[in-house]
């Protein structure tokens, strides 16, 4: 699939919605006990992009979040750090300073997040600035308006341009599947992002409902799997928004494990974008360790 702004009305092999959702539901019935559960929950933490994307974000809020990401449960050294902290571009310097030496990455949304309705030059400037300020991961949004209007080449060109602007930073391409509506659209958007050089496919901004769903992520995993088998290039997947419980996170991990396998069971290739998920995962981990559930207030509300 060549990316050129003249490309429009592209078609991809169909997705059967009922069967896709059936398969996702089936994967969701896996029963995870004891060691498998603990390992899965810890993996979920290590894969987490702890996120704050609010108009009311402040340097103080971001610093608190960075503290939490670096040491999610200070009393338990066996609990890993999160993969990254995800913030708006203007707060990248704050996060970079707060996370120095922790190994936790700084991810920044960019390109006019969440709607993406600004001109391309501004998008590229925003990306360049975030990277210059120290963001190692850029979460861009695709132009859903252009996509739905059938201007697929335009969308692909923009992803490629943003990828160039990222330099060494990893590019996560937010498809905003809640606005694409159909699985066929999701598949096509996946292929545009894969061919335009995205390093990660990401479901959602978290600002549109539904955000991440298991069937959508299953479909995205099938796409990156087939892309890898065809080209040898691995691309990651990030499920973002709407994942609030450890139980849900485990369902996603099962889907990764049974669709893409070992290669993707790593923070390098699968991420959760979430703000409230972490504390539930911590609570489940402590429950596995002690046999009892603790109060929500026993976990820091950073």
């Amino acid at each position, binding site marked *: 699939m060549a990316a050129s702004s003249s490309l429009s009305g592209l078609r991809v092999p169909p997705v059967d919605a009922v*069967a896709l959702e059936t398969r996702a539901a089936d994967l969701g019935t896996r029963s995870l*006990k004891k060691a498998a559960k603990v390992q899965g929950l810890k993996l979920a933490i290590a894969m987490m992009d702890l996120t704050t994307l609010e108009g009311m974000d402040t340097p103080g809020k971001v610093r608190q979040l960075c503290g939490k990401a670096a040491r999610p449960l200070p009393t338990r050294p066996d609990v890993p750090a999160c993969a990254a902290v995800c913030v708006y571009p203007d707060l990248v310097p704050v996060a970079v300073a707060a996370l120095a030496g922790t190994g936790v990455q700084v991810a920044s949304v960019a390109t006019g997040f969440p709607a993406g309705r600004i001109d391309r030059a501004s998008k590229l400037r925003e990306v360049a600035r975030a990277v210059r300020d120290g963001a190692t991961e850029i979460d861009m949004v695709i132009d859903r308006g252009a996509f739905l209007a059938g201007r697929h080449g335009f969308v692909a060109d923009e992803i490629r341009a943003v990828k160039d602007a990222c330099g060494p930073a990893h590019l996560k391409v937010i498809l905003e599947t809640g606005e694409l509506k159909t699985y066929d659209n999701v598949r096509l958007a996946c292929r545009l992002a894969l061919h335009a050089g995205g390093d990660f496919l990401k479901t959602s901004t978290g600002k549109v409902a539904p955000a991440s769903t298991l069937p959508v992520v299953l479909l995205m995993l099938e796409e990156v799997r087939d892309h890898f088998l065809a080209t040898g290039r691995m691309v990651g997947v990030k499920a973002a928004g709407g994942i609030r419980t450890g139980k849900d996170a485990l369902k996603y991990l099962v889907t990764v494990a049974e669709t893409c396998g070992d290669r993707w069971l790593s923070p390098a290739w699968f991420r959760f974008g979430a703000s409230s998920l972490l504390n539930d995962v911590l609570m489940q981990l402590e429950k596995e360790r002690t046999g009892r559930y603790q109060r929500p207030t026993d976990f820091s509300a950073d």
Partner: protein
Amino acid sequence: MKTNDSTRSGGSKAGKAGGAARGRRGAARELNFGGVWSYAPAPEATEVAPIPARQELFVGGAWTKPMSGRYFATTNPATEAVLGEVAHADARDVAAAVKAATKAFPAWRKLPGDERARYLYRVARILQERAREFAVLETLDNGKPIKETRDVDVPLAAQHFFHHAGWADKLDLLFPGQSPEPLGVVGQVIPWNFPLLMAAWKLAPALAAGNTVVLKPAESSPLTALRLCEVFQQAGLPPGVVNVVTGDGATGAALVRHPGLAKVAFTGSTEVGKEIQRTLAGSGRELTLELGGKAAHIVCEDAALDQAVEGVVRGIFFNQGHVCCAGSRLLVQEGVHDAFVQKLARRMARIRVGNPLDKNTDMGAIHSQAQLARIRELVADGVAAGCELHQPACALPKKGFWFPPTMFTGVSLGHRIAREEIFGPVLSVMTWRTPDEAIEKANNSSYGLSAGVWTDKGARILWFAERLRAGVVWNNTFNRFDAASPFGGYKESGFGREGGKQGMRAYVRLQGALASG
């Protein structure tokens, strides 16, 4: 036996599939599974379903010792451990059961429909309340995974009682102007592959229509039918309305021969079905048969391939392939054959075979030694015929009866594995070039129970469905069952329908001007 768990590009020409070079590069970038994160055992507890050491016959509402004094053991196919003993009914016990059903018939038929419905609703609710017990018991006795008994067998069995309870007081609406009447005492013989579900399929419409029943469960899986008798007692069903006689083929033969029956309903092998039909010929007794199958999946180039793979897996590996309507023949359009077979082989390697009680098990034990021998024989024949065998590397338990998910490519219509019902987890893959050829191949079978069509194009679905000689045609899905949907076959797959309005027809006698056959 030659095994091959990686995929091959098959015999087709290089070109659009990428050819051999790509295949070789592909091997280096194969996916790995299970090395990073593996699921801990998650066995369902069995305490919920204690099994008595010895169980009697259920005749006239009471547990009755067999006149011969003989019992036989039923075993767990996953461990070969004996689960318990059940009574061996002979012709005298069968006669007593028919007598009890005959005695119960006049009162049961006279009961207003809504009264009969009340019993059936009660049975359905109790089944739901005791769902876990039934799921565990079925898994122990049959070998199928708990995931299936929990999510399919037991809920569907309850649904059949719910659905048919609804018909009990609406028979006049179902057959307007035809004065539907129950037939009398019905003899029902059911197989071992869905012991509880088949009992529900057979009993619910018979009882709703006002018949009384003598049911003979399969010799190797009698426990859930006997447990169902407890439910009937709990529901207060009048004595004699349902009688259950356990035993072997001789017991079944004694039942279908009994002159006191108004109808025989049989689900099982085509061979035994033919025998029953010969026995009943000229007797004036009604008969419905639900027999074997060799269903074809037709996969078109434009199908949603990943989802079709799921459907094919569900079609042939569900219940270890012990399904009369299993999709055991895969007819793939030539242009997508290689891609499809590769996806399928990868997916097959993800099927978790093992302890049926583990909640993460996808495929359980083969039901019996005899069935395993039959599967092995036919698979050996496929290998001898030169078909290419694909089996994922999977560790099978030492004890019990096991067979891995299996696929043959390069199969021709003449091969035994393409013609005979294997009744196991074995898929035979063939190709087609034009829709006419697909139809010809799909219909080239002595059976005609079910078929599947996989395409994104609506008009093509209808074109295929019109031409497939199969009682059930699924589109973009497979092995989906519903109490409201009639199920049954063409040709050597039998006659008569079960489920829905059509299923009710098999349990009533119609009178009046509109009545026919």
